[in-house]
């Protein structure tokens, strides 16, 4: 069975719905990842050895939790988090439910990216801020975040693209989305038309996100 244009048109509404679901899941989980992952990444960085809030206990505790969540395969996380999903989303199926697991996976991922971005800052710049008598909060807001923002934007891009890939597995909990559509129709039912359309949409989506991310990162960098 080859590509069938008419078939694609009849499934148009379904594709559109799936596309909307993908965006919905990414938007929620990305927002959560930024709101929790960013502070967590900063915490991991500033409590590191030799930095102004050095604290071995905090660093190793949070580092351990982050590594633990990151080492669990997403598909297992998706199932393991069903009880939590029930509490937070009120249901265990649908895009909202899938967003819970996506968020949990994205938080440590993004936190590590933020930590790596902060590591790229010249230690001397941080030291100069310490020497000036700045408070830790000032250093975070006025030195760390501005200096790392271009790199963090690249990290956001990377996180979104990973979320696009993860969201394909959301079908396991009835999450829907483009990836789920590809699996349900294209893979299980040998529907090549849907397979091709969804893959093309995913390719275009990822390209666009990457382009936009690169462009933004470059535009805000004053170096």
């Amino acid at each position, binding site marked *: 069975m080859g590509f069938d244009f008419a078939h694609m048109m009849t499934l148009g509404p379904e594709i559109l719905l799936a596309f909307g679901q993908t965006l919905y899941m990414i938007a929620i989980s990305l927002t959560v990842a930024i709101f929790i992952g960013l502070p967590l990444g900063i915490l991991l960085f500033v409590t590191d050895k030799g930095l102004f809030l050095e604290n071995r206990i905090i660093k190793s505790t949070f580092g351990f939790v982050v590594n633990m969540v990151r080492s669990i395969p997403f598909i297992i996380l998706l199932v393991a988090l069903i009880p939590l999903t029930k509490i937070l989303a009120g249901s265990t199926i649908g895009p909202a439910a899938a967003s819970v697991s996506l968020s949990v996976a994205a938080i440590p991922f993004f936190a590590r990216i933020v930590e790596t971005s902060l590591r790229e800052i010249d230690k001397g710049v941080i030291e100069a801020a310490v020497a000036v008598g700045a*408070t830790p909060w000032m250093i975070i807001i006025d030195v760390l975040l501005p200096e790392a923002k271009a790199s963090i934007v690249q990290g956001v891009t990377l996180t979104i693209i990973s979320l696009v890939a993860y969201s394909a597995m959301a079908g396991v909990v009835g999450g829907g989305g483009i990836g789920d559509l590809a699996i349900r129709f294209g893979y299980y039912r040998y529907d090549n038309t849907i397979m091709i359309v969804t893959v093309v949409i995913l390719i275009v989506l990822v390209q666009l996100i990457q382009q936009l991310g690169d462009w933004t990162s470059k535009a805000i960098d004053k170096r």
Partner: protein
Amino acid sequence: MIEIKDLSKVYKTNKGTVSGVDQVTLSIKEGEVFGIVGYSGAGKSSLIRCLNLLEQPTSGQIEINGTDLTKLKGRELRKARLKIGMIFQHFYLISQRTVGENIAFALKAANTPNNKITGRVNELLEMVSLSDKKDVYPAQLSGGQKQRVGIARALANDPSVLLCDEATSALDPNTTLAILRLLKKINRELNITIVLITHEMNVVKEICDRMAVMQSGRVVEEGDVYDIFSAPKTELTKEFISSVVSFDVPDSILKACTGRLIKVLFRGDVAGEGVITDTIQQFNVKGNFLHGSIEYIQDRPLGLFLMELKGQQEDINQAISYMEKRGAQVEVTTNGI
């Protein structure tokens, strides 16, 4: 002003402990420019970084204006740091913030009210002659301009001390001179005590009042810059001085000398040429200049001449003791300096 007592800094590495600063005791007076010289690894960088506790000393005390910094923590330490400015070899400006914002950052650290920040930033920019660069990002500035921003940031909260960590080592000679003049001006006009570390003796010669020479974490020589230049005690100090005042005479010339080779040094008010002329006239010796220079250190001349004296041994000895009587320091040498 700054009292450093038995200061030591020991680094723990995988291969055991390394001593960065070893039992250093120094006293720096208010209003002076104090230079610390040494090769890389001599511990001078560790020492200056201990002065504002960027590095926590292992033992010893640092008293600035009567406060022992090593006892301070958190808020108290931050407050003390407001009054200790620091500039760096690589400037370390916030690259994503404008020149004005970089300076404002230091003012914010001191809780300066917002309505006073702009005025103070303009004032500081004027002091370092960068008024037209307020809204420019550091990437658009030259090295010398970046260091000026660094200086403005360091002076933002009216510090009593300015620490300079190899502040001119990344700059070309002309820019170095301009920055050194600015530092001297700041020292004089604002009466800020300056402590600088460098491996360039030129810097010390240019602006320092007193100096210390460091090797393996210890201070091996310390004193007035003029005194040290005219009478260095250690080999290391002589080595450093020869980088500025060098008497390189080709070997072939030295070998061709048949008379006695002497190094004559005149300090300050002794008019060197006059003494030598008188000597040649009064004694039956011939003088032959091989090298000579007059260095001005802290605006005082220091004359150094390398010459060959020819004649009877007896006459030469008399000539030398005559020169010594007239205030010259004479050293018989075989190979120049």
